[in-house]
């Protein structure tokens, strides 16, 4: 506790900048009131739709989000150093689309499954840092006292417990999310691992591997904005075809992926808002955190896996990375929902 007081005093120089930043952001239509409404709307509609069923737990991650007791004013006085450009850099340089874009000879469902599993591996590595028990204190950095709720700035995420959204401590929330995601990933009905069904020419999806007239064979950005936009939105919605169908993924796969991405985003949001400086910045691992987050956002936006309204807690950071061009333009232009 004493550390908190001390650090906010030390951080004063940055406050000014941050308040400025927040107020200027309001000019961009992401003001507090508006996002407030968005989120309420989100809570209302998503609770009925993309509700991830739990394989191993009775409770499911709630889609609802609620404001914590903190008022906006108090919130604004807490400077967010992760929004400081000096720190908004990655340990990895280059075009992140390289690793995100669907390769030419790979079906989209197969590719999204791969991305989710790999991104979960990264996130797990980061979360383990705040789950490690500090031998000086006997508790992990993310514990019930430091993080009594799963919060990210003004937002507090709740977990559905016996049908009701409940505020549970962040460490419990994160562990539940991890178990839920791993349960999905290791469920062969959701993420099949047996060798894929052999495909004859007739079952090929258009635009999948269409041979010679494709402009850039196998380059990571092979799927152009125009071709990608329409299958993604439509395939998910129509009943006769869906993402991953030709590779044997089930109908709900796309929604499962979106659900996992949503929960992973919440973990990132908590990591940034509550643990960016403590410990990541102090142990000089904030650049790695950024690399993972940028890759995660590139994939999530490029494949339109996360609604914009859900990005609120880290929108400022996303804006910075977009402006820097670190999150590629293509990811921004593909991001519809």
């Amino acid at each position, binding site marked *: 506790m004493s*550390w908190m007081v001390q650090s906010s005093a030390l951080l*004063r*120089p*940055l406050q*000014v*900048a941050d308040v*400025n930043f927040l107020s*200027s952001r309001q000019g*961009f239509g992401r003001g507090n009131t508006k996002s407030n409404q968005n989120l309420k709307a989100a809570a209302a509609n998503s609770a009925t739709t993309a509700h991830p069923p739990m394989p191993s737990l009775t409770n499911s991650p709630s889609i609802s989000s609620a404001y914590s007791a903190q008022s906006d004013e108090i919130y604004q006085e807490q400077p967010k150093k992760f929004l400081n*450009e*000096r720190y908004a850099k990655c*340990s*990895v*340089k*280059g*075009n992140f*689309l*390289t*690793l995100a874009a669907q*390769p*030419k*000879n*790979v079906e989209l469902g*197969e590719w999204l499954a*791969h991305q989710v599993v790999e991104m979960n591996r*990264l996130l797990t*590595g980061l979360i*383990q*840092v705040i789950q490690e028990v*500090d*031998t*000086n204190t006997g508790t992990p*950095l993310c514990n019930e006292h430091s993080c009594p709720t799963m919060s990210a700035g003004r937002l507090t995420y709740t977990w559905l417990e016996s049908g009701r959204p409940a505020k549970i401590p962040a460490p419990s929330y994160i562990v539940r999310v991890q178990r839920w995601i791993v349960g999905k990933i290791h469920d062969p009905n959701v*993420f099949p*691992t047996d*060798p*894929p069904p052999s495909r004859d020419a007739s079952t*090929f999806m258009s635009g999948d*591997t269409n*041979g*010679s007239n494709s402009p*850039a064979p*196998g*380059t*990571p950005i092979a799927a*152009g904005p125009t071709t990608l936009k329409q299958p993604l939105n439509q395939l998910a919605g129509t009943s006769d075809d869906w993402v991953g169908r030709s590779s044997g993924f089930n109908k709900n796969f796309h929604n499962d992926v979106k659900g996992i991405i949503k929960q992973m985003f919440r973990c990132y949001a908590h990591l940034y808002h509550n643990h960016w400086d403590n410990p*990541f910045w102090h*142990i*000089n691992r904030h650049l*790695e955190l950024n*690399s993972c987050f940028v890759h995660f956002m590139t994939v999530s936006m490029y494949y339109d896996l996360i609604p914009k309204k859900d990005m609120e807690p880290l929108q400022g950071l996303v*804006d*910075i990375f*977009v*402006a*820097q*061009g670190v999150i*590629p*333009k*293509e990811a921004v232009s593909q991001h519809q929902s």
Partner: protein
Amino acid sequence: MDENNRLRLNFQFDNQHQADAANARFYPTTPSTFPQPIYGQQTDQFGNLMSPNPTQQQGYFLNHPYTQQAQQYNQQYGYQQNLQSPQAAYQMNARPYMQSPNDATGGLVQQFQNQDLSAAPRGGQSNRTPSPATSSRPRPAGDPRQPYQSHLAPPMPKQVQKPEEEEQPNPHKYSDNVVKRGTAAKQLVNAFFQENIERARDRNARAKELDAIVKDPAVSDLQKQNAINTLAQKEATFLRFIRTRESPQNFQTIKIIGKGAFGEVKLVQRKSDGKIYALKSLIKSEMFKKDQLAHVRAERDILADSKDNPWLVKLHASFQDNAYLYMLMEFLPGGDLMTMLIKYEIFSEDITRFYMAEIVMAIEAVHKLGFLHRDIKPDNILLDRGGHIKLTDFGLSTGGRKQHENSYYQALLKSSTNDKAGNRHSMAFNETINLTVSNRSQVNTWRKSRRHMAYSTVGTPDYIAPEIFLGQGYTYLCDWWSVGAIMFECLVGWPPFCAEDTHDTYRKIVNWRESLYFPDELVLGRDAEEMIRGFLCDANDRLGKEGGAHDGASQIKRHPFFRGVVWDQLRKIRAPFEPKLSSNIDVSYFPIDEIPQEDTSAIHRAQAKQTAPEQDAEMSLPFIGYTYKAFNAFQNS
């Protein structure tokens, strides 16, 4: 000191650029701006953080280093711009993000970088007032004017009051294990990006191959479609294979075909598809104790790098659990050259020529990959189905960096003959053999005992070059010495410096001038003897020195002993000994009788469970990035 460090890291960084540029040329389909882990910078900062004197951390914000860092960014930026052009050219529809420098985003990036420069004077040691252009102020995205404004020193609404109190990173506020977790996360992230970049490259190469087929007018449409389908199938299978958690439970043990101090090699069958592999398992705790981590890492790296090299044993996957590291390799049913030598005692010159020629090719391949093997010996030369050789056991291979056994060998050399008994014990070599070269029966006793030696911690020193023992540094030439020693053994029947105990072997090798002796009763061909002497000599005079690490083999191939060898056809001719196999799990070429078959894994597993929880296996610091999967792992094995 700090200054030098930074400079060096900057240079390193530049080298990395050059390497990337080279790669970009090599893979024309690959966007040249692959994300690249920036090790230099990280180490740099971490070094600062970990410095014992916390005041040094101020240095991070001092003018000079920071400016350098900014220059580094600029270089980097320039680099990215440069390398984007070839890609845009390659792609028919150049994408908008391949922006010209005038492009809005590109411009923004540039301004951001400038912003960085202006931040340089912040928080110096002196009491100077901070620059008003607090670059740290975040700006909204999409507003192109904003950066300009702050770059041109905008007035700050309020004066920053005590900039020197700005918080400094302090890793010491956490216990060491937390910091270690952070390091583990960093390694995980680096490994993730490296691995996925490599996969993207390989995938692009495969797509390019397919494209060539598709564009080939001579190929029928049906064949084209088949090629497309086959590759799609393979790519999908590979992605699923990556997603599948590999574990020893996926395999059924058929026989234990090798056992050593660090683990064992088993012939296994994958339960799901019935495919046959050799599964090498290494006990983590033993590796720790014996300081073998660098070795196992080197082995995994070289095999992962070598991909489809015909001269090296194929590594299909590497994985781990708490107790073991696993390497899933192709099963070579022909056994090894050691077993062959035990069986036949002596080879004719023609047969010797065949094996030597193949060994030369294999070592050349290792050297071309940038590794030294350092432990070439008959036990590590395996025979495949057709009787052709493949090298294995790269545990001692290095990329030319570590020399860490030197101290070990030095200690052995210096230890007095008085503690021979104890030493012998540690070598698991208990039979005392009074060996004289002319005594055949005793040579045979030695021959039998050598298998024990092979399974012991240190292995046999018989084939190791003197310069390795002497600790004066060594080069790729040490592998050619080993070839000479093996050739001697093939023709003579025992290794040139064999002795009743390891100590004497060391001494004989170091004093090779006196101890190298060709038995009178055997007449070797002139070329053969000359070649052996060409290998078993001072590194400066050794055959293979001409041409260096990458072309040393050329000189050897020209040696009169190899006259008539068609080097690029070697693997296609019939081998002198072709294994006669009854099935694909025939282990008759392995000394199964001499290997205890009981399963001891439960003990190690139980021990490991006490120390670390299961989920941590992948994340325990020294083993991060060990897990690996090869694209062709599941095909035609």
